């Protein structure tokens, strides 16, 4: 009785501490925090090492992306086959800023226009590039543009009760549309080549070890933040409500919840997280191009989440990291047939581990339990 009382008197603050109730989450965050202090130093003091850190940084961005998808898919049961759209948009916003920072150091030395505009004879900077000279504006856009798109899109879709597969397919249509649009050279975003040749970020040389370290720290920090946000949301009453929406939306309506609004908000939050992930991703890989909008890539994101364990925040993170580490290693260990390995893993996991690797963990636990 009293136990119940204390257990249910959850305030926002206690929520945060509560997340350290889930062991794996605790481990993850500890690792991340350690890495924040450890890796950049390691990176700077190992002279040969020039890419491990940005590689890890990249993984963390993907992890954040996966996290954002898990929030809507794992909990609210909304499967987006187009989350790459928000990731990519976030990336482009950051990319545009980095392009502006090149200034007159482009190959044509044109202070006004990015190189690709010069050789496509653009007279002047198109209006939608205005303001991207300022980092603040750009980072604002990183949040606004994906957020706004997600809001409008989901408001339309959920408003008219588009659900399930139909929703998934139109998200795919959305990302596909964006890909076609951005591929066009006269669209003003560099066409197929996208945005590249970045020089600095905030005045610092983008390829210097310090910057890389800093970028890694940012990614890790954002991942932790993202994790906490998601954790707070799902461990509050909303967590249950989302599950309710997932399992029995009508019941939730008859309980007096405006499920549409809940879905829109959660979808928008998720999109913003994805956008931030994209924005952190671009400076670390040094290029953003329409390839990020290819529907296949968006499906890959879903695969990460499924692999790690849908409906477990840490599962998403682990899934993203595992798949991409595999990719990095297999592409060099067995360049000819690595894709077949990857495919097999996807199939086996979806069939035998419905909750992804988190199941694996449970199996191991049970195994040791028997001993």
């Amino acid at each position, binding site marked *: 009785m009293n136990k119940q009382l204390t257990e249910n008197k959850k305030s926002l603050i206690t929520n945060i501490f509560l997340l350290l109730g889930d062991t794996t989450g605790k481990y993850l965050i500890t690792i991340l925090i350690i890495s924040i202090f450890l890796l950049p130093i390691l990176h700077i003091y190992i002279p040969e090492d020039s890419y491990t850190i940005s590689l890890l940084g990249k993984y963390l961005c993907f992890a954040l992306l996966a996290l954002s998808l898990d929030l809507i898919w794992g909990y609210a049961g909304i499967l987006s086959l187009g989350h790459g759209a928000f990731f990519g948009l976030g990336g482009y916003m950051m990319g545009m800023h980095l392009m502006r920072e090149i200034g007159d150091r482009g190959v044509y030395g044109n202070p006004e226009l990015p190189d690709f505009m010069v050789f496509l004879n653009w007279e002047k900077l198109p209006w939608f590039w205005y303001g991207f000279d300022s980092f603040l504006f750009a980072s604002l856009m990183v949040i606004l543009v994906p957020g706004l798109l997600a809001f409008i899109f989901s408001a339309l879709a959920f408003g008219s009760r588009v659900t399930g597969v139909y929703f998934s397919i139109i998200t795919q249509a959305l990302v596909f549309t964006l890909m076609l649009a951005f591929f066009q050279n006269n669209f003003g975003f560099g066409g197929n*080549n996208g945005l590249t040749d970045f020089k600095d970020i905030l005045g610092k040389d983008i390829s210097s070890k310090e910057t890389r370290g800093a970028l890694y720290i940012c990614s890790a920090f954002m991942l932790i933040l993202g994790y906490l946000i998601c954790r707070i949301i799902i461990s509050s009453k909303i967590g249950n409500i989302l599950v309710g929406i997932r399992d029995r939306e009508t019941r939730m309506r008859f309980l007096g919840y405006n499920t549409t609004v809940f879905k829109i908000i959660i979808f928008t939050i998720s999109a913003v997280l994805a956008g931030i992930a994209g924005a952190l991703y671009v400076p670390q*890989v*040094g290029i953003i191009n329409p390839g990020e909008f290819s529907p296949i890539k968006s499906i890959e994101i879903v695969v990460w989440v499924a692999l790690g364990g849908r409906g477990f925040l840490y599962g998403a993170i682990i899934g993203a990291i595992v798949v991409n580490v595999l990719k990095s290693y297999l592409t060099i260990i067995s360049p000819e047939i690595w*894709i077949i390995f990857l495919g097999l893993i996807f199939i086996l996991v979806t069939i035998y581990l419905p909750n992804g690797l988190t199941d694996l963990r449970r199996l191991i636990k049970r195994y040791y339990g028997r001993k």
Partner: protein
Amino acid sequence: MYKFLKIFLFSIFFLNFFNLKADTIKVGVLHSLSGTMAISETTLKDTVLMLVEKQNKAGGLLGKKLEAVVVDPASDWPLFAEKAKELLTVQKVDVVFGCWTSVSRKSVLPVFEELNGLLFYPVQYEGEESSKNVFYTGAAPNQQAIPAVDYLAAQGVKKWVLAGTDYVYPRTTNKILESYLKEVLGVSSDDIMINYTPFGHSDWQTIVSDIKEFGMAGKKTAVVSTINGDANVPFYKELGNQGIKAEDIPVVAFSVGEEELSGFDTSPLVGHLAAWNYFMSAESEVNDAFIEDWIKFIKDDKRVTNDPMEAHVIGFDMWVKAVEKAGSTDVDAVRQAMYGISVPNLTGGTAVMNTNHHLTKPVLIGEIQADGQFDIVWSTSGGVIGDAWTDFLPDSARIVADWTSPIKCGNYNIDTGKCSGQNYE
């Protein structure tokens, strides 16, 4: 889970120390073996492997054996950058042969410049670039597009269709051609039709019938095609089906070689043209030897050879020669040795590496035959020097590339007398 992560983190850092011992000379191969570009790039991977094998049979290089390190960037551009880094830092390769699309090159460029690597890029491209760390063994626009247009103009062509896939190479090439047609050949702008299509465009009915209409209205018309890879087969099939004969409207392509043609029945397309620096049908002893080796290596006598393969052959031979000349594989030494170095090309001439990192090559124009081969109907008397910065775009006309002193930079602006862009010392 925690354990796994720990192991993973450590392994990544230790990887850096694995490959320190270097008793072989490592040759990196950075070509997509999966994804959309695999169709073109896999062949180049095999070509490099064959060349390495050959070199080893001949006793290796500087008394060491060559070792090819193959990675698969999977037609994923950011992955290209990552893999390039891995090749240069983890695998510690001495040279890399790779990339096909412009975007993949753009994506690895900063990596090679930062880590001072050496990349040989074997594909014809839009120019507008000359990096200290890249040798461009493919054709620049002035080694492909412009001679082709001249040839057709000589054949009495008055109207032009510039059809291309919507990415940077066709955009730039067509831009160059447009201004060339207008200013040099004096073609009026309503005799020029420009059309762009998305990647892998498969339904060509409308466009082809537009071309037909445009072309049948009196004046002799030709199509200059910069259509990319996969989209070509349906395009040519549609041409054949709508009965556009080469005699009526010849199509000259810059991205269609023997390999693309091997994908379909060319008998309806006899007479359409392509401009390259190499054709499999070129008549020379070296070429025959090369074709024989290739078929032996790939164990399939249906396989063909094409221009980018020759580019790799030239690039590889040049690199070997330069390494021997420099006596080491040190990038800077090799680069210095590369300038002015000359090796026989497969068409019976010699290729020379210029100080702007582009080659001197002959330009050939071939007509498609029923067997999927080209008959060479025209060729430049001597070699043409690759021009990194075209003279037909106002902004790049002012820029020259020369990596030897006194200029020592890839884009030196004649007017301002200074270098811009990332790639200067």
